[in-house]
């Protein structure tokens, strides 16, 4: 009798601990299943050639859309002091270089757009409403106001996608601009992005010296709007840079989204410059840069700017100096300097004040610097 019971006890004991184990499996499987389903289900769509998809991109037109965009960079950058590398995300607009960031975007025609970069307990907004452009930072309680010249509006209308470069659309545009005979364009299996079926356009450099392995753009099958942009570095299976919608709606957002009134207690800066603020182009303007090479392996040579003055943020000044000082020193026949490498690009800062950058390995930069 007693000998029969002992294994039974062990049995119920095992069963009992099986309950939390089962719950754990379910708890882990529920969120994962959503991801797996969306990833594995390749929606069947009428076939389209790469050329057709490129044309679709050119003609993509939506009256309005809104959604949540998640941007993720895994550039293999060294952990640099002063470079916001928190995964929860700071809401500062200059922190986009690394980590994961979530943005909410609203778009309602070319003269109404809003982008909100979500920080943990903060938010930075860029709101365009006709000729008024507001940049709001909740962390600093500041608002910048730009009154855009009338001409800009037309220019934006002519532009295909007036959104900021952090949206998939703008990012795709930039990739498309690089398309030359040096590039192979193809399609991959259809994808599901933000619950929508999409074509996947693959752009790959032919030159094996490029650090970029390929770029994949998911294009919404109905609206032809790019939903996701991924850049893969050579030798890495995970994308080095990814920006895509996690949730998207093609309903035109209400006008309220684009109305911005500086809240009481806000420090408002009026910027009356005619040019758009430095949000479209982050490369510092030194002397006129020269380009060595072509296509994906082109290397840009320029002179280092005196001091980055992008948005006058606190991150400038000593932080940048400290950041540069922490880069490894390199030298060669071209001289000496400091080198910043990542999985997608390399930057060489020579001691004589030159900046050499490209989506190539440092050797190509040295070669360019030696010229």
């Amino acid at each position, binding site marked *: *009798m*007693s*000998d029969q*019971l*002992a294994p039974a*006890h062990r049995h119920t004991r095992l069963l009992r601990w099986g309950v939390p184990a089962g719950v754990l499996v379910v708890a882990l499987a529920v969120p994962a299943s959503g991801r797996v389903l969306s990833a594995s289900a390749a929606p069947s769509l009428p076939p389209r050639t790469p050329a057709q998809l490129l044309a679709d991109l050119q003609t993509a037109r939506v009256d309005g859309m809104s959604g949540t965009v998640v941007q993720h960079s895994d550039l293999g950058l060294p952990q640099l002091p002063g470079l916001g590398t928190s995964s929860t995300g700071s809401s500062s607009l200059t922190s986009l270089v690394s980590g994961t960031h979530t943005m909410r975007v609203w778009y309602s025609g070319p003269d109404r757009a809003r982008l909100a970069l979500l920080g943990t307990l903060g938010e930075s907004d860029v709101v365009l409403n006709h000729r008024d452009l507001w940049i709001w930072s909740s962390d600093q309680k500041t608002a910048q106001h730009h009154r855009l010249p009338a001409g800009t509006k037309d220019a934006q209308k002519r532009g295909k996608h007036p959104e900021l470069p952090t949206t998939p659309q703008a990012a795709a545009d930039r990739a498309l601009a690089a398309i030359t005979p040096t590039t192979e364009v193809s399609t991959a299996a259809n994808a599901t992005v933000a619950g929508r079926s999409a074509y996947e356009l693959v752009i790959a450099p032919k030159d094996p010296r490029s650090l970029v392995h390929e770029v994949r753009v998911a294009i919404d099958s109905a609206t032809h709007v790019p939903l996701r942009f991924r850049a893969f570095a050579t030798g890495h299976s995970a994308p080095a840079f990814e920006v895509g919608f996690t949730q998207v709606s093609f309903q035109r957002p209400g006008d309220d989204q684009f109305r911005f009134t500086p809240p009481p207690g806000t420090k408002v800066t009026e910027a009356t410059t005619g040019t758009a603020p430095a949000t479209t182009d982050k490369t510092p303007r030194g002397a006129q840069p020269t380009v060595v090479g072509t296509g994906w392996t082109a290397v840009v040579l320029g002179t280092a700017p005196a001091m980055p003055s992008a948005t006058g943020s606190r991150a400038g000044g000593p932080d940048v100096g400290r950041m540069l000082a922490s880069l490894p020193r390199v030298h060669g026949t071209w001289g000496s300097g400091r080198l910043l490498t990542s999985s997608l690009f390399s930057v060489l800062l020579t001691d004589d004040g030159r900046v050499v950058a490209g989506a190539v390995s440092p050797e190509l930069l040295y070669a360019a610097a030696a010229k």
Partner: protein
Amino acid sequence: MTATARAGSVAARSTDPARTGSGDAIRTEGRTKRFRSGQVAVDRIDLVVPRGSVYGFLGPNGSGKTTTIRMLLGLITPTAGSHSMLGEPMPRAAADVLPRVGALVEGPAFHPHLSGRRNLARLDAADRTSDPRTATTRIGTALERVGLTAAAGKRYRAYSLGMRQRLGIAAALLQPRDLLVLDEPTNGLDPQGTREVRGLVESLAHGGTTVLLSSHLLSEVDQVCTHVGVMHVGRLVSQGTIEDLRTAAVPRVHVRTSRPDDAAAVLRRLGVPAPTVHSGEVVADLGPFEPEALLRELVLADVPVREFRVDTADLEDVFVALTGEGFDVSG
């Protein structure tokens, strides 16, 4: 060795069908508890507590009484065996059985910052079978029965050891019970309190409640119990009615003489079983013999008898014989 033989005979008597059966308040079969350390605290015990009995559960400290009680109440998982309480299998029927069982396990334990009354109210609230409408009355009655009415509003922290013990008993009396399991209920009580508890147990038994009374003190069990079980190093070495046990305590003959070996030889010749010699004294079970006859034979055999004595062993001796040691010995 005589101990085990005697225990066997008592146990055999207690399994008399007239006394046992499904009507037993507690019945265990081969209940065993082996702790994870490998120590066997309770080793295959077959406890039978008939309904209506007051069962003295005796044994030195550490002999496995409390572990047995914890198994009975479902506090610890038995390693082997089975048991039933009030005729229902345990621990499966615990939800039905335990409301009819009042228990005091290894001393009282209450929330120190709550009053005695609040502590009882908490236990009553936890009982799904108790009627909230009668709670106040029942708590009052229980406190009164243990003589704590005056101290009911005091924080438990301020209670003396005896008051704590009484509150523990009061908790066991919150409901009318069919079975009371009282583990060392007189611990910490003064002689007056001990008498009161004894009286309480007697009156409860009169009302038909079965009482399992564990103790390491023989005197407690002696006067109120109808049945006795004796634990020794995790085993139930004896069990039966208290009369059975007394009967088992056969009278012994003591002969003090200058020639003990001769005396032993005479007794052996007469058929007295296994006389033993200790420092000038011969001791043997009297058996069916007449003491007068034995003495005459000794004198006739020229044994110089200095002292001839027949003891009717009391229960204490029986327990010492059963457990191999006196009571109140730890281990």
